[in-house]
């Protein structure tokens, strides 16, 4: 986890979201297909109905702890399983969580972020979440039943992973397929509403950006921006136009990209950021400006890649730590903050919280509680993290009983 790991496994254990019957159809098909070559387990209090075409054995929560994970992958469908799954230290961690729901508890959102950040493979059935993750992590796939080839590549990625092969080559292939799918949609039905067109243009731009087809990305994002303005969208500038700066950055046009971002900078904070970027460009720190600009476009992956090249720069180190925290890479953030000199003021509390969370995910509850208590000496709000441990425990019990969690819980 947090790195390329290509070890074959002979079985996989599903940590479900509401039992076997509640699995999304494409996921169920995938598990049945792979169940022909691998042993399949599910963590559930209820036996799996005979409707499953392969033998699926159930595991209790206790059995999860004693299970031989040396040759097994954990397949996690609900973010609240994270602690149970990670503490088991499986050979592979495969995240297939539902996309974030409006009004869901903040704990779920955090857990989903940690889960995806530590997963060897992420498969999702929601396109916006897929794109969000594609900007953070390496092995991300969409499996939403939109067309045969796209789905096949996602299923293949899962299979390759279990067989010990990195699915990396399939990532770009699927992104190309998705870019083409959007091209076809846009040149197809002329009766399509402009609202549909807006998201098609924008997603098309994002896929073209991901596969480095940058001129087409530029065309598509400008078309999306024009439509957004004509539709009176309040975020025309901050969502659609701003993404042009990421495209220009990938084209190597750093100064132009900063200029484009500056046009989209409306709030005081955004305008102060432009001052920084301009100053860095003037000081010849184009790499740093580019790294921050990628992050401002939510492309943490590109941002981190740039920052890796500038690791000697203290500001780059700081930005790297922030990127790690924002994307949920706790262990990486901890490694980078281990140097006490890099921590100032509130950083110390954040460091303790990070250590606590990392300990919790590794199954070291006592250490986690100890760190959270230490953090609470700096700010009392840190005690909330201890309450979250209990919330997570009860969520796991509910998930185990096979009842899906209500997203309105808090």
């Amino acid at each position: 986890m947090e790195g390329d790991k290509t070890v074959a496994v002979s079985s996989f254990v599903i940590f479900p979201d509401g039992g076997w019957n509640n699995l999304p159809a494409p996921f169920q098909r995938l598990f049945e297909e792979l169940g022909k070559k691998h042993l399949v387990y599910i963590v559930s209090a209820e036996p799996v109905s005979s409707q499953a075409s392969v033998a699926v054995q159930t595991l209790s929560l206790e059995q999860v702890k004693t299970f031989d994970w040396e040759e097994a992958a954990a397949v996690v469908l609900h973010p609240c399983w994270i602690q149970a799954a990670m503490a088991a230290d499986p050979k592979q961690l495969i995240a297939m969580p539902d996309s974030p729901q409006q009004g869901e508890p903040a704990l779920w959102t955090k857990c989903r972020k940690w889960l995806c950040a530590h997963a060897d493979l992420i498969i999702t059935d929601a396109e916006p979440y897929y794109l969000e993750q594609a900007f953070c992590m390496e092995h991300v796939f969409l499996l939403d039943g939109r067309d045969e080839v796209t789905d096949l590549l996602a299923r293949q990625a899962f299979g390759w992973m279990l067989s010990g092969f990195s699915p990396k080559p399939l990532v770009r292939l699927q992104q190309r397929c998705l870019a083409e799918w959007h091209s076809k949609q846009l040149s197809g039905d002329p009766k399509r509403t402009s609202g549909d067109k807006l998201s098609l243009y924008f997603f098309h731009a994002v896929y073209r950006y991901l596969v480095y087809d940058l001129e087409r990305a530029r065309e598509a994002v400008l078309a999306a921006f024009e439509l957004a303005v004509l539709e009176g969208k309040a975020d025309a500038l901050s969502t659609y136009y701003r993404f042009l700066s990421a495209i220009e950055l990938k084209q190597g046009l750093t100064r132009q990209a900063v200029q484009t971002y500056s046009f989209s900078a409306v709030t005081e904070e955004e305008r102060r950021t432009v001052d920084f970027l301009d100053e860095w460009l003037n000081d010849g720190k184009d790499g740093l400006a580019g790294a921050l600009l990628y992050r401002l476009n939510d492309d943490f992956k590109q941002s981190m890649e740039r920052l890796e090249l500038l690791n000697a720069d203290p500001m780059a180190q700081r930005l790297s730590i922030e990127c790690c925290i924002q994307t949920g890479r706790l262990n990486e953030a901890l490694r980078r903050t281990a140097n006490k000199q890099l921590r100032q003021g509130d950083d110390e509390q954040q460091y303790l919280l990070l250590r606590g969370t990392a300990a919790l995910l590794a199954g070291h509850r006592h250490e986690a509680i100890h760190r959270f208590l230490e953090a609470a000496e700096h700010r009392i709000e840190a005690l909330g993290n201890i309450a979250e441990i209990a919330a997570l425990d009860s969520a796991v019990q509910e998930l185990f009983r096979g009842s899906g969690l209500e997203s309105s819980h808090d």
Partner: protein
Amino acid sequence: MDDGRIWRRKKSGNKLTAIMQVRNEQGRYLEAVLAELSRFVDEIVIVDDASTDGTCELCSSFSKVVRLVRLESSLFRTEWQLRKRLWDEAVVTSPDWILSVDADEIYEQRAALSIRELINQDQYDWVGYRIYDFWGSLTHYREDEWWTLHKRHTMTLIRYLPGFHYYYPQWEHHVPRLPVTAAALPGVCTEFRIKHLGWAGSEADRRAKYERYKQLDPFGKWGSLAHYESILDPKPRLVRWHEEAME
């Protein structure tokens, strides 16, 4: 970006350029409009859409007209191209702010006097005004179901951001006077007023405009047919215009 820095908004010394497309405006309001504009803008850029009268000569007689392009054939049937041509011609003169003015529009005095204050700041990039459609005279404007332009703000003044994506929708008629994408930038709406005199003339003038709209857009593809028909309303609701109180 000449000093190695990115382009930034200027808080002072902004050049204000008026842009205008004209066609056969001789004997109407153009001379008065240019005279008024010359008092408060720095430069004027005009595209003459193949006038056949003395419009072009009239324009060139004003010293602030720094660029005057005369089209050989009219682009009025593809209005977006005409708008875009005017925009492109203005951009080559390196404006800081662009004021789009029709040949029959007059900015009231306080609007003209406050314009420097409005442009010499770095917070917003466009300004909205209220445009009043004068009807049959210079004393009344029209206000009824179809004639409510003054009830909302119209963006007529925008900052020129070099490198920004300016876009006109490719419509044949009723194309916005300035690139629509400018409206995505932060702007400010003022209560300053603009007198639109295009309907202030005789009934025959209005009928001629009506005939022209119906000819250009017989099926109401670019505008509302009911709006066109309302031009001929024999009893429009008119409201007396009150001149501003100057301090």
